[in-house]
């Protein structure tokens, strides 16, 4: 029990943080926002998958990827291809010169479904593809880079270049990919209308559940010896290598895992937003994902989620009123995070959080009530973490 508690939730601090996040996205948001806003939050939370993946890869692993959009996009396109095929049944597309293939293929004089589209007729194969292809692609990139000991800024540039290449490829191969417009007009999932409000609610909760699962899985990895090794490699790569570890394998693994997480986010994005396009693959979204992680705190899995929500809320609010100013503001935000609070929101909370709890005493009494402690016991507990742990396990 204690093992599970420490490993999966990261001890008391991490457990409380996760509880608060879960309460916020699972209870507070659905209660206070209508389905339109909730769907928007759901969209933001799909970016949070990419932000969490960057905490692992960049915050702990020290390897900055400026191409998480690649994997987000691959996941999103995988899901979009399945939904598009379902929307392109022979009856729905009877006016086309070749019925039964997606409309954009017909417009581009393609008369037969390309071979790589065929597996996406099956939902099972689609899910397998979403969970394996991005990770496999990351393995190829990672093995090619890390085995040759390419890292740091070179790695960042190469991932960015791959993101550009993929975008150009998608835009250029209009007949196979839907081009610049992306894959649109997605309606049903196994006959179930995905544009209905009830479907949106269900996707939102699936999204939240998976996000929490991803955070727990990431925490399990970070609290293991693997997590210590990531930090050790970031600090002194040679020392790790000369302690008998094949450093490149560890980097490849964390890159693949980050790709997998991002791809899950991408697939959920398509389901909730109802389309996928190359504008979620290229440089701009990839860099935005880095900003989300940086603002939230690149060493904090939960912070990355808050960072994503906050920046996107800001983006929506500002770009509704000052669309042309938003990009400057975003750039300014990134620079100020890097210069003034490099550990992001999570770092600010670690440094100044106790002021907040002190000045808003109701918060700490609430906390004590929550954990069934009188303030005096809470003080003792602060001195003796074993006591508080026992109290927590009773909960």
């Amino acid at each position: 029990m204690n093992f599970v508690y420490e490993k999966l939730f990261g001890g008391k601090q991490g457990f409380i943080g996760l509880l608060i996040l879960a309460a916020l996205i699972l209870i507070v948001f659905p209660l206070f926002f209508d389905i339109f806003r909730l769907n928007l939050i759901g969209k933001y939370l799909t970016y949070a998958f990419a932000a969490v993946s960057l905490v692992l890869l960049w915050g702990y692993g020290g390897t900055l990827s400026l191409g998480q959009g690649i994997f987000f996009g691959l996941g999103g396109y995988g899901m979009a291809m399945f939904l598009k095929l379902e929307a392109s049944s022979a009856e729905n597309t009877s006016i086309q010169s070749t019925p039964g293939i997606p409309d954009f293929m017909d417009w581009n004089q393609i008369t037969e479904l390309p071979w790589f589209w065929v597996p996406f007729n099956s939902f099972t194969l689609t899910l397998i593809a979403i969970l394996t292809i991005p990770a496999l692609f990351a393995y190829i990139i990672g093995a090619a880079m890390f085995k040759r000991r390419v890292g740091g800024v070179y790695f960042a540039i190469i991932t960015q270049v791959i993101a550009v290449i993929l975008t150009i490829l998608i835009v250029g191969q209009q007949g196979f990919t839907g081009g610049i417009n992306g894959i649109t007009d997605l309606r049903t999932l196994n006959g179930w209308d995905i544009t209905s409000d009830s479907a949106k609610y269900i996707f939102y909760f699936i999204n939240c559940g998976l996000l929490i699962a991803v955070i727990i899985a990431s925490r399990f990895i970070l609290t293991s010896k693997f997590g210590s090794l990531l930090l050790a490699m970031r600090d002194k790569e040679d020392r790790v290598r000369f302690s008998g570890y094949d450093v490149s394998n560890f980097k490849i693994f964390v890159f693949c895992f980050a790709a997998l997480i991002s791809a899950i986010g991408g697939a959920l994005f398509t389901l909730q937003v109802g389309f996928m396009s190359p504008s979620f693959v290229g440089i701009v979204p990839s860099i935005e994902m880095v900003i989300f992680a940086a603002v939230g705190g690149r060493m904090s899995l939960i912070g990355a989620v808050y960072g994503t929500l906050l920046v996107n809320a800001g983006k929506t609010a500002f770009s509704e009123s000052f669309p042309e100013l938003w990009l400057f503001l975003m750039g300014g935000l990134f620079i100020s995070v890097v210069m003034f609070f490099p550990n992001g929101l999570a770092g600010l909370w670690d440094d100044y959080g106790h002021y907040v709890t002190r000045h808003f005493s109701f918060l700490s009494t609430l906390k004590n009530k929550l954990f069934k402690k009188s303030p005096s016991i809470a003080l003792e507990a602060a001195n003796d973490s074993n006591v508080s742990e026992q109290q927590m396990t009773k909960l």
Partner: protein
Amino acid sequence: MVSNNTDFTLAVEDLTVSFDGFKAVDNLTLYLDRNELHVVIGPNGAGKTTVLDLICGKTKSTSGSIKFLNKELTNMAEHEIVRAGVGRKFQTPSIYENLSVLENLEVSYPHGRGVFGSIMFKRTSEVIEKIHQIADQIMLRDELETEAGLLSHGQKQWLEIGMLLIQDPQLLMLDEPVAGMSVREREQTAELLNKISQGRSVLVIEHDMDFVERIADKVTVLHQGKILAAGNMKEVQADPKVIEVYLGH
């Protein structure tokens, strides 16, 4: 190439490495017996650190052979050489500053070295016992929970030695282990080295002559990539060539 098997722990034969024509190590032959504590000395630029780099695989040799327990090391990857039983300490203390002393030792513990092995690695009582045993040896038992970056310079050097000891290498290579240490710390380190060289071979690079005298079974003097003299400390110190290039300075 010589390919005879020997009784030596380490047999370096005709080892040469050249960087753009400059021979940093030139036709070097060096043998280490079981349980021998061997010190390599020499002026700056003599190629001492390069020899260690070559043995542990950090630098690839141009020609020659390095055999560790009759196993050829020259074509092995760094981590394979470590797993074969060669540990190497770097010149500047190379520890993980953000991790605690305990975590530093745990990361160096020779189990769970694969990706999945490390994820499933458990801190069993066996691991803890080994960590405590090593911590006792390197005089850091009371600092297990301290963040390694906060240790003194000497303690960092010991910690790195401990990180090697926990892997129980057959050959331990130390690059200037007492550089920057106080007199008291040097004495403690000499004691430590004499203790840990029981049951394994140790190759040390050092500048401090008093320290060398205290620990060395055998001394090799390196000059411009070549061996100038070898033997015990007395013989080496009496050698006129050595006096000229090194000790006389």
